């Protein structure tokens, strides 16, 4: 396709009033490109102008200088054309109103020593847009050679069964693997469960048996009991899965990466590559490397991880203040087992348990609930209190809590049980459980009734939690170079959870969707809802991979990282740093990208010291050209040239926040030039070096919060960027530049009101440092 360019400048929304449009057109025409203006480009008439140019002049690359690219996306989308949106509305005119940034008067214009900062800003942005569009390459979507749409569900409890039924109902073939010899999970064995539908005020029969029947009757669902996953190799849409019996040892058991302590010698120095390879082979004796595919493996398109939980078993010396170790002090799980057998009797002497105390928090000043409880154990205690009352009309059930948490409409269950005269609840700190005359006494402090109370109990039940299957077992056993499980799971107490608040089922591994109690402590109702979410996500996955588009969060993105392998030095940074484990490597260390695992954040592009990784429309070159297109005025141009500051802005939160500033007509320095990036992780330090070496005075990165409560949409991007920014200091001092010229700031989308101060403070700090000495060279 031959490229034919056109630049279109909208003068509506106050743009034409604030800017000298003719001057901008002159710049465009200097580049020998046609410049077209219209007072209302997003109108039908405006769009017709563009469409006519497509048909009559054959223009296929458009630079549209108007509003932010975050609005009117579909209006300016033309089949087969490349469109670069230059944001001169929110980014220039609206955020730099003329009452604060006055235009030059006719008289002032006479004197060449005067300049108009806002006009300069708009002109630079148009230059940057023209520079970038030139670099956009054609792109052929990546589609795996063989595709499978089958969905693998790991775990046959309520979550797994519900997910399988949902996926099957949509027409997909599902295989459930269950490590036990029967599906159903824990709840199939219970007496009752908490309600899942209105009016939410009565206990119901467990849903599991009904689900078992439905799953067994569904022709699209295949059940494999006594089966676990040995390894999942490949990529979404094309996973090769090896299944095995629990306890079996097979050659396709997944190999583990070397633990960090085995990667170094006695002095703490990283071992040579060859030695590491040998050690790795030794460490994984009898297991095939991740790159060797199991020829008998089964194909799947996506995986739903519903491996569930196991009851928390307190250690022998744990909870001694709660009398743990006494036969009549049991966990809620043990109580459930007793209740399933019939009327609840005491384990010690078999006498009826009429006075039962349910303890929800470890006591002795602990504010939280027991470990791994999520918010579910309050509801469990309510349910079990009801068992006591059902079994014994003269029974008393006491619930001692620090937090009474009933989720959603389960509040009605709480309300209903409150009405029961034999159910007593109070907040309180349990200090001691002690045997007394064949019974137990429970001492509680700081209750709603009084400072110190004592209760008599036949039985004490501890509201212990649900330990996720991923606590000590990767479960998914991914044949990924980064390891078989999810990274950084300690952040989430080893639940298969993430900080993807808006996308709860997405894990750090594309194509693997977690649901139910493996994700956090959930009720059956929530788990089933989770199952639907994960089923839909897995369908989204298989229906995206087959069209060569990214699954999420850049859904529909056709581009992918392209490696120029001739120049690769096998440094493995991309393999290590990819937040999604998308890149494996071979024995030599050459990266092997698995593009369907990729989320297109560009972290690899930012990581690569050789700059051999780029996307068709987002590359080292395209952003670099934009940086270079910024006109940096020097003393040759003006007596007191304005500073030029580059801002690389994360497009997920920071860039929308800047648009909000524009909408609110709130201003920031007009000397900054902002470039949106996919993620701060994709920022390659070469752009910063380029900016500084062409005389720009400072560079800042504006992106998401990192650390334990990271908000980065790509998990690691902003964190990696901050590491790289720290390292860039050395490079700057070798150029005799101050480290303070480069900075990184964290903002969330709702921090927009803080951005003007952040930017202005940085600009003034840089101004204090003085102009970049390279200016003008």
């Amino acid at each position, binding site marked *: 396709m031959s490229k034919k360019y056109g630049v279109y400048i909208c003068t509506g929304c106050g743009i034409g009033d604030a800017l000298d449009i003719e001057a901008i057109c002159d710049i465009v025409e200097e580049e020998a490109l046609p410049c077209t203006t219209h007072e209302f480009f997003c109108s039908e008439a405006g769009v017709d102008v563009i469409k006519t140019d497509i048909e009559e002049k054959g223009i296929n690359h458009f630079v549209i200088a108007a509003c932010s690219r975050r609005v009117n996306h579909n209006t300016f989308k033309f089949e087969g054309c490349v469109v670069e949106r230059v944001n001169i509305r929110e980014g220039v005119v609206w955020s730099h109103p003329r009452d604060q940034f006055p235009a030059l008067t006719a008289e002032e214009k006479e004197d060449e020593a005067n300049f108009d900062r806002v006009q300069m800003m708009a002109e630079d942005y148009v230059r940057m847009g023209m520079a970038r569009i030139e670099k956009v390459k054609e792109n052929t979507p990546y589609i795996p050679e063989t595709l499978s749409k089958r969905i693998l569900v790991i775990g046959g409890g309520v979550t797994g069964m519900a997910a399988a039924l949902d996926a099957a109902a949509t027409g997909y073939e599902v295989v459930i693997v269950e490590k036990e010899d029967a599906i159903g999970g824990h709840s199939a064995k219970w007496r009752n469960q908490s309600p899942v539908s209105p009016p939410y005020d009565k206990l119901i029969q467990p849903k599991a048996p009904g689900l078992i029947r439905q799953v067994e009757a569904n022709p699209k669902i295949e059940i494999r009991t006594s089966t676990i996953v040995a390894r999942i190799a490949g990529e979404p849409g094309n996973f090769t899965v090896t299944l095995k019996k629990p306890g079996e040892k097979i050659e396709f058991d997944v190999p583990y990466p070397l633990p960090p302590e085995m990667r170094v010698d006695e002095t703490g120095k990283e071992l040579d590559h060859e030695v590491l390879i040998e050690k790795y082979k030794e460490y994984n004796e009898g297991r095939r490397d991740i790159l060797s595919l199991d020829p008998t493996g089964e194909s799947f398109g996506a995986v739903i991880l519903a491996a569930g939980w196991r009851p928390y078993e307190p250690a022998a010396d744990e909870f001694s203040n709660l009398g743990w170790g006494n036969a009549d002090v049991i966990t809620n799980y043990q109580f459930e087992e007793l209740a399933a057998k019939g009327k609840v009797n005491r384990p010690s002497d078999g006498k009826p348990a009429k006075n039962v105390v349910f303890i929800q928090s470890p006591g002795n000043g602990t504010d939280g609930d027991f470990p791994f409880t999520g918010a579910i154990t309050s509801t469990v205690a309510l349910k079990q209190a009801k068992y006591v009352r059902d079994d014994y009309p003269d029974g008393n059930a006491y619930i001692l809590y620090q937090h009474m948490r009933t989720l959603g409409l389960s509040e009605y269950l709480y*309300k209903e049980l*409150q009405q029961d005269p034999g159910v*007593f609840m*109070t907040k309180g700190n349990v200090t001691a459980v002690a045997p007394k005359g064949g019974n137990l006494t429970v001492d509680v402090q700081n209750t*709603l009734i009084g400072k110190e*109370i*004592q209760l*008599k109990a036949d039985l004490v039940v501890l509201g212990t939690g649900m330990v996720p299957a991923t606590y000590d077992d990767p479960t998914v056993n991914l044949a990924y170079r980064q390891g078989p499980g999810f990274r950084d799971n300690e952040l989430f107490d080893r639940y298969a959870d993430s900080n993807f608040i808006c996308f709860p089922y997405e894990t750090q591994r594309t194509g693997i969707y977690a649901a139910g109690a493996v994700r956090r402590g959930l009720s059956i109702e929530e788990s089933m809802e989770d199952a639907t979410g994960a089923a839909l996500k897995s369908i989204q996955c298989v229906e995206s991979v087959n069209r060569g588009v990214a699954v999420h969060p850049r859904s529909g993105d056709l581009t992918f990282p392209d490696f120029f392998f001739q120049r690769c030095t096998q440094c493995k940074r991309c393999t290590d740093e990819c937040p999604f484990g998308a890149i494996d490597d071979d024995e030599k260390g050459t990266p092997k990208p698995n593009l369907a695992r990729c989320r297109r954040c560009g972290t690899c592009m930012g990581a690569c010291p050789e700059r051999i990784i780029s996307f068709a429309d987002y590359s080292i070159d395209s952003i670099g050209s934009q940086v270079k297109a910024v006109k940096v005025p020097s003393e040759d141009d003006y007596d007191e040239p304005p500073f030029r500051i580059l801002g690389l802005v994360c497009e997920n939160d920071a860039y929308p926040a800047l648009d909000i500033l524009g909408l609110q007509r709130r201003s920031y320095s007009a000397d900054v030039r902002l470039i949106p990036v996919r993620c701060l992780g994709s920022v390659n330090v070469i752009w910063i070096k380029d900016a500084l070496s062409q005389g720009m005075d400072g560079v800042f990165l504006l992106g998401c919060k990192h650390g334990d409560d990271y908000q980065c949409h790509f998990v690691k991007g902003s964190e990696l960027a901050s590491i790289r920014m720290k390292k860039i200091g050395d490079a700057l001092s070798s150029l005799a530049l101050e480290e303070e010229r480069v900075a990184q700031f964290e903002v969330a989308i709702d921090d927009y009101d803080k951005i003007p101060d952040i930017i202005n403070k940085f600009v003034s700090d840089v101004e204090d440092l003085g102009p970049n000495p390279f200016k003008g060279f």
Partner: protein
Amino acid sequence: MAEKFLIQPDLEFIKDIRALGGESLKKCFQCATCSVACPIAPDNKPFPRKEMIAASWGLKDKLVSSTDIWLCHNCGDCSSQCPRGASPGDVMAALRGKAIEHYAVPQSVAKAVNDTKMLPFLAILPAIVFLAVGLGLKVFGIHWLNFSPELTAEGQIAHGNFFAHWLVDLIFIPLSIWAVAIFALALKRFIADIHKNALADGTTTKEKIEIKPFLMSIGRVIPNILKHKKFSQCGENNNRATPHMMVLFSFIALAFVTGFFFIYLYGLGIHGPYSQLNPVKILANIAGIALIIGGVMLFKQRYEKVGEISTYKDWYLLGIVIGLGVTGMLAQFTRLAGFEFLTYLIYFIHLMFVFHLFAFLPFSKLAHLVYRTVAMAYNDYSERDVKKI
């Protein structure tokens, strides 16, 4: 205070409170909006939040001997602001009913007075007593109950000729003693219990109850009670303060009138009926009218009040108040109008109401007159409201 409080829920108590108008008590989720909303609760351990949980846990001993249920004036602000519809005000009222029942002896009378089913029997009980005593005396030739009464020398109707003042006093003096004795017994236990409770709760600065300072506290609270100082701080049921004051002052005035004429009769030997221009008679008439108006207003306010539960104990007391006033005034009007039979009949009924007032005072809601006064005095004595540095 550091002693552990052993909790033993009394399920029967919970059932009783629910039946006495505290049906909603278990809806409470202890947010304490009530204690914040209450215009008259003390800052130190305010009510009714703690009473709500104690009630839902069936902690009878803690509640019946609580001063706080009596410090509550049933403003209703807590109930109207309760986010859960737990109506703390109604629960507190039910608790008071239960406390009266708890301290009154004999218990069987207390149970009967608060039992709707016993009303027909209790209603005619005074008539039975009057007739039994009156007719019994006739056997001995004493005609204090005269079914064919004569007019006075001036040709006026005299109720005393039908129902002799001797008979009235023969019945009502022992009844008064009975009421006072029962109260005395109840208060002895009550004061000891609330003190013990206050010590446990840390709402008192005093170790022991000393008679003299305690009496001084009573002296201090009575003017406030008469002024309805607390009652008029109420939000929701503020409009009840004035009619309540009318009823209270009417009772006080009528007690004074009764005492005055008692002296008039036995001291000076002057028999009724007394002149309508007699200042004491004028006071009696004003009080009678105020009693009716106040009683009817309270009845109307309770009847029209949405969201508040009024139970038998409330209607019984209002019935007595209105009945006393109406029959008292009607007896006088019919007497002046010369309707002989009618006026004797109404007078007889009036005396039946008076019988109820005296006989069941320690058992009915009217006992709040005594318990609340004592509780408020105790609160004053305990110096709970005094801000500590």
